[in-house]
């Protein structure tokens, strides 16, 4: 089975061809173009969607070429239908619909967050993990129970990715700002006291955001260091609580912030304490990419037929815990 997946929820436009044999998947190609806003600014939905529209045909043809397939070889087409930015989602959906109707290939709308998790599972070999999804759009702790991914903990306001990006933009960095903050944090070991808010298994970052802005004038390196230490300790504690409550023996971290090495080291030390295996999505597939969408398309197609073109939707607000998983 061959599937084309199209991702366009936020700043990334990506197409990927994935092949499925039995339970195993193989990524044949994964091509991405990322919209870069000016330094100190965030994603402008209209500009991002324009970027996606302008680059879509080039990304698609490169992706097919790299995978050595033609469109008519494809068995499944899937697109990220949400959650994400409306204008951006529509571009991916339009490309998917056009291909599906012209070449008569079954089409599947896919939940973006589910893509992060399932591709992470496939690539790392995790069987029944507690999942930590940390990105610009999500900060959630999840486990699978009777047909759905259940939320054990999440952010009560902004996400970890937003926290890092907003501090970065405030300091005039180019988005996404995570890598720059990680780099600056390495240059300091001076911890400034910042608000630490864990409510049960949930976390709240908005107070931390305001407080960090206030300490930036005293030195950006120590501000970045203190920000990372506080935020990651919070998410670490919430994860540890969920691990201890669920008794899961595997932890999988996925999403853009999974690429942060300090976060990984905190999580792996927690896993060591609880005799639990630690998996992190490989760096190149941690962030948004077409492979995630493509892989879900393949999994879905093993259980149900594609949907009618008139029912293909996009949904800006589409919570992962409302999606029924049949495979």
């Amino acid at each position, binding site marked *: 089975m061959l599937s084309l997946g199209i991702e366009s929820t936020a700043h990334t436009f990506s197409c990927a061809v994935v092949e499925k044999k039995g339970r195993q998947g193989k990524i044949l190609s994964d091509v991405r173009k990322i919209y870069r806003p000016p330094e100190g600014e965030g994603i402008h939905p209209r500009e991002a969607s324009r970027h996606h529209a302008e680059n879509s045909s080039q990304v698609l043809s490169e992706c097919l070429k790299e995978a050595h397939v033609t469109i008519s070889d494809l068995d499944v087409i899937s697109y990220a239908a949400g959650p994400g930015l409306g204008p951006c989602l529509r571009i991916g959906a339009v490309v998917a619909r056009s291909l599906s109707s012209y070449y008569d290939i079954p089409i599947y709308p896919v939940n973006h967050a589910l893509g992060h998790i399932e591709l992470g599972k496939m690539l790392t070999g995790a069987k029944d993990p507690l999942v930590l999804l940390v990105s610009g759009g999500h900060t*959630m702790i999840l486990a699978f129970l009777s047909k759905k991914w259940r939320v054990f903990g999440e952010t009560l306001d902004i996400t970890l990715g937003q926290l890092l990006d907003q501090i970065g933009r405030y300091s005039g960095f180019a988005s996404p700002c995570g890598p720059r903050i990680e780099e600056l944090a390495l240059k300091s070991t001076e911890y400034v006291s910042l608000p630490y808010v864990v409510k049960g298994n949930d976390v709240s970052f908005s107070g931390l955001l305001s407080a960090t802005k206030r300490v930036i004038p005293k030195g950006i390196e120590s501000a970045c260091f203190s920000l990372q230490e506080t935020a990651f300790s919070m998410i670490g504690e919430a994860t540890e609580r969920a691990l201890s409550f669920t008794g899961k023996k595997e932890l999988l971290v996925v999403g853009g912030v999974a690429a942060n090495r300090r976060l990984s080291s905190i999580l792996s030390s927690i896993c060591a304490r609880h005799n639990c295996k630690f998996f992190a999505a490989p760096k190149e597939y941690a962030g948004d990419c077409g492979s995630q969408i493509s892989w879900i398309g393949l999994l879905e197609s093993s259980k149900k037929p594609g949907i009618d073109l008139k029912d293909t939707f996009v949904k800006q*607000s589409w919570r992962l815990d409302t999606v029924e998983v049949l495979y």
Partner: protein
Amino acid sequence: MKLVKKGAEADIYVTIWNGLDSILKIRKKKDYRVHSLDMRIRTLRTIREAKMISETKSFGITTPLVYFVDEKKCEIYLQLIKGKLVRDLPLNKIIKICTEIGKIVGTLHKNGIMHGDLTTSNFILSDQGLVILDFGLSQKTDKIDDYAIDLRLFKEVLNSAHAQIVEDAWVFFVLGYRKILGNMLTEKVLSHVSVIEKRGRYANVV
């Protein structure tokens, strides 16, 4: 001294304190946290837990007795309670006991305390009735928002860990809660719960 549980926050041992069977709760140093942050969190929570456990007794809620607190080592010696965690009870029992849980939570809120970590593993069903544990995240507060956070967390736990019975269990919980707090306050807190839920990422905005 025997280790019974490695919790998220603390290690729990069974031991003897002055001839009494006792639970020793140690909030151990976490290497992944910066030292000053780690000390701040552990000391604060140890002191707070000891205080709150004793204070809630005055409202008629059953909690373990506090035998001894060492805030330097972040240790608390508590009375050993024999029984079963609510989390591990059969499903139909959990549903029924939710009324009792609702009453306890209602009493806490009525007296201006939020628990902060209302999970089904923080309640023990013993011979003396239902006992509530783990006040490390508790707070004195008179804000409706804080009470609603307590309720939302409990709902989240039901929704995730006990998905098969979430609807019934929640109804029974609210029933008990309402008995203590009365209709007006209960409705106020419940409507705030849905405000918080709407604040969630990608929640369906009505």
